[in-house]
């Protein structure tokens, strides 16, 4: 099967001259769940921001067969669902339902269809009861679920999750894990949470100074870099 994501020789330099990415090669295949590990500032988040064109560097990035170019951005952003670390930034609409319907409405769906999709996605994450609520009345775990519903409503083929377990209590983490395991999409996890990565990811990639320096099973990579508590 062809790769969902293909990255070759990706380089990116920040405005201040820091070389954030220094030649990354990466592949994601259907059914994969890859954990991106590495120190803070090693380029993991910068890397995932290239996948849907929020940042553009030198090199070559292809998502679902489409090169990441300006013309392809709407299609690519519909295929990659990004869940950011801070749910408060992700949930910006006045009510949960409007927020989850935001993505589908941007895809050009009629408002009734978008709302229907939003309800389906909310049901999928067990949050339909909160549809009329304002986001700031939700707990951290609930917000994370709604954020996930917001991207699921767009029917993506890939999920990118940036530090999905931060701010979640252990039961919240457990429920999120269960939910993510049930979702069929290929996934990329950016995380420091090794137990979480071990229970979910099929593969791990280790970032160091803007480069991928190791690849393998989560336990292998963790062992190689002494990457645990």
């Amino acid at each position, binding site marked *: 099967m062809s790769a969902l994501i293909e990255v070759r020789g990706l380089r990116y330099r920040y405005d201040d001259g820091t070389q954030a990415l220094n030649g990354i090669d990466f592949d994601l295949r259907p059914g994969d769940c890859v954990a991106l590990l590495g120190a803070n500032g090693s380029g993991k988040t910068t890397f995932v921001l290239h996948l849907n064109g929020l940042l553009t560097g030198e090199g070559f990035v292809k998502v679902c067969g489409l090169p990441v170019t300006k013309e392809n951005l709407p299609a690519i*952003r519909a295929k990659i669902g990004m869940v950011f670390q*801070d749910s408060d930034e992700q949930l910006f609409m*006045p009510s949960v339902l409007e927020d989850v319907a*935001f993505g589908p409405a*941007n895809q050009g769906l009629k*408002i009734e269809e978008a709302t229907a999709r939003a309800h389906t996605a909310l049901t999928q994450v067990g949050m339909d009861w909160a549809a009329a609520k*304002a986001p700031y009345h939700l707990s951290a775990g609930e917000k994370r679920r709604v954020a996930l519903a917001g991207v699921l409503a767009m029917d993506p083929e890939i999920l990118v999750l940036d530090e999905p377990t931060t701010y979640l209590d252990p039961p919240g983490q457990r429920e999120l894990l269960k939910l993510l395991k049930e979702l069929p999409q290929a996934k990329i996890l950016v995380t420091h949470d090794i137990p979480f990565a071990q229970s979910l990811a099929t593969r791990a990639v280790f970032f160091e100074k803007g480069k991928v320096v190791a690849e393998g099973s989560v336990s292998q990579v963790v062992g190689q870099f002494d990457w645990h508590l």
Partner: protein
Amino acid sequence: MHHVLVEQWSRRASWLHRRDARGKLLALVAILIAIGTTRIDAHAALAAYALLLITALLAARLPVISILLRSASVLPFTGTFALVSWIAGDAPRAISLLEKSYLSALAALLLISTTPLPRLFAGLESLGVPRLINLTVQFLYRYLFVISEQAQHMRLASRCRSSGKNNHGTRSRFAAATGSLAVLFARSYGRAEGVHRAMLSRGFAGHFPLLAAPRFTLADGGFLTAAIASALLVRVGL
């Protein structure tokens, strides 16, 4: 906190809660105009408005006493001016200032306690409030609590640091406050960029999708007519 309670009220179910936000906004303006143009010595008319508003509170199944108390938040400001007017020898105006500003605040609180904000924003938009302002109000309200919470944390943190050291002069505390605000600004700026990133990731292309504008039903028309008629009746009749 104020808004949390009001928001819970706004999500209750009653005939008044179900009315269209535009109808309620226009009804509010009508009653405010009636109150505003009433003679300052027409206490009977002002009492009638109060009765009207309390009837609406009861119809909306809202906690009357709490809302009556809450509307008093306008009184410190009004009270100051009432006192000044009274000192200046204009006692009737002093009383009227208190009455009118209190009733106006009560009417505004009635609207906000029967209308969830998303619906109010949608109503304002279809009444012609510019999109940019409406979006700004929405984002403002959305992040008000998030950023206020950060401000609280910073205040707490700076209090923890400064406790026990009484030699902290005004100058250094001023500098600390300045630093806090600058950092709060930086975080707010960063947050806005994060929000924009999240918007783009979900396909934002420059236009906010509008959820379907609610329909203005016959009942809404009836409510608006009744509200205007009763305001007018009191204004002209009493």
